[in-house]
């Protein structure tokens, strides 16, 4: 009952928005190829369901594969730099600068390096997008444990490893999850934009580009809907993991 009351306004807005869209397209006689009504998009989703499913799978593999590579790389570098102040001083400015540049601009170059039709080229774009936020936030989390906590551990004559596992890593978790929530969203953006510049024919980005160039906008929209669903699904999975991993965190309180 509490859930119903909590989510009812959002559901109402969603349904209302779809209805308004449908009615606006009909009432204002907007040309269907410019903005197809939701009913057309739904029809396209049903008609092309097999193609969309296959394309969604291709794009998802690229996104998740690249996410995994970026995550592993980001964590590895973060742990190495967090341990050594010298490495941190040398690397962090570049990482922060790299995080500020539009990495997606490298997509055509990655396509050239790793093969336009290969999923690896898309994974590499995604990996680069995910790497920097994960690395920077994890380093911040690992190095921001408060002085009193470290002093407490010192009074126990705790080893560096014990300080890492018992103070620094738990302290870094909120930073880490902030980064991978961003990374989850970025990974689908990276995969789809990578596909815009060429790739396997049955991929969401290809379907969007090709349908749009042939003015089959309902089909383009149906692929966008699938991409949106994948993005939201990925994000929700990460939120689920976050809740399981740190039920103690302030942002989780009062939810259980």
């Amino acid at each position, binding site marked *: 009952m509490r859930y119903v009351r909590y989510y009812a306004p959002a559901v109402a807005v969603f349904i209302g928005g779809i209805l308004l869209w449908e009615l606006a397209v009909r009432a204002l006689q907007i040309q269907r190829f410019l903005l197809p009504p939701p009913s057309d998009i739904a029809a396209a989703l049903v008609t092309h369901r097999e193609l969309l499913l296959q394309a969604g799978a291709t794009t998802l593999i690229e996104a998740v594969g690249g996410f995994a590579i970026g995550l592993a790389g980001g964590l590895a570098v973060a742990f190495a730099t967090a341990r050594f102040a010298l490495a941190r001083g040398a690397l962090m400015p570049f990482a922060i600068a790299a995080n500020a540049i539009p990495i997606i601009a490298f997509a055509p170059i990655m396509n050239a390096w790793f093969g336009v039709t290969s999923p690896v080229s898309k994974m590499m774009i995604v990996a680069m997008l995910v790497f920097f936020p994960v690395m920077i936030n994890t380093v911040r989390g690992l190095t921001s444990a408060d002085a*009193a*906590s470290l*002093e*407490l*551990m*010192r*009074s*126990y*004559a*705790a080893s560096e490893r*014990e300080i890492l596992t*018992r*103070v620094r890593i*738990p302290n870094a*978790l909120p930073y880490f999850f902030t980064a991978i929530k961003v990374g989850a969203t970025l990974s689908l953006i990276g995969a789809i934009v990578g596909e815009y510049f060429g790739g396997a024919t049955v991929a969401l980005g290809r379907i969007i580009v090709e349908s749009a160039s042939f003015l089959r906008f309902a089909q383009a929209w149906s692929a966008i809907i699938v991409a949106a669903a994948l993005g939201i699904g990925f994000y929700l999975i990460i939120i689920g993991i976050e809740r399981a991993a*740190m039920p*103690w*965190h*302030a942002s989780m*309180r009062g939810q259980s």
Partner: protein
Amino acid sequence: MTEPKPVVAIRDLGKTFGNAGSETVALSDISLTIQPGEFLSLIGPSGCGKSTLLRVIGDLTRPTAGTIEVNGKPAARARTDRDYGMVFQAPVLFDWRTIEANVGLPLEIIDMPKARRAERIADMLALVELSDFARHHPWQLSGGMQQRAAIARALAFEPHLLLMDEPFGALDEMTRERMNTELLRIWEQTGTTIVFVTHSIPEAVFLSSRIVVMSARPGRITKIIDVDLPRPRSDATRESDRYFELITDVRESLKLGHGPRTDEVEESVMEPIP
């Protein structure tokens, strides 16, 4: 009869911060011996180095002159032997651990077997009367309860020495008085030697067997006052004539230290959190 071995022996100790040219003398000419079972308070104005002295005893900072022995060995050795427990002004409990897991943290570090650890945690929580809150997280507890958990954690090793750095400074006066009574009960029950840093004259008088009065810039010992109030102490103690005499005594000694800013030591209890 041999003299009991002192828990802390400090001789001609000094501590200077900073580099040559811009030095701050935090401690100068400190000599002090603390006997087993004592409850010793360090009191003085801000900047008198009382916290620094406590941190030197705990080997959280090193002296620049003189010698210090804890349990008959160098302070650094005493730390690695886990001879003392420390309680800070903030409870420093980890949000990701339950209260029992927080209390058990030092025991995990010394690799105490799980069964014995659970037993010890239960004992410590009973000692500070937090048994019903073992599974709670720190943020679900009041400030006073959090500090009690921190005391339980500091006592988990069963150390001979408990170092407390203004542990009740952030609590309201009523909670603080209750915590003082509790601390005396724990001290009597465990027989631990306590070194207690405070800003508050009434707190020092109520708790201590000896009060070390310090003056600022440079931090040195002005006077050591024996507190001969009978034990066990209770609310009645706080109303006795001797209690007020001793408060006056400590206050006069603080003025005697002619630290220009004795006004920084308050006589009542409320204290700004730095």
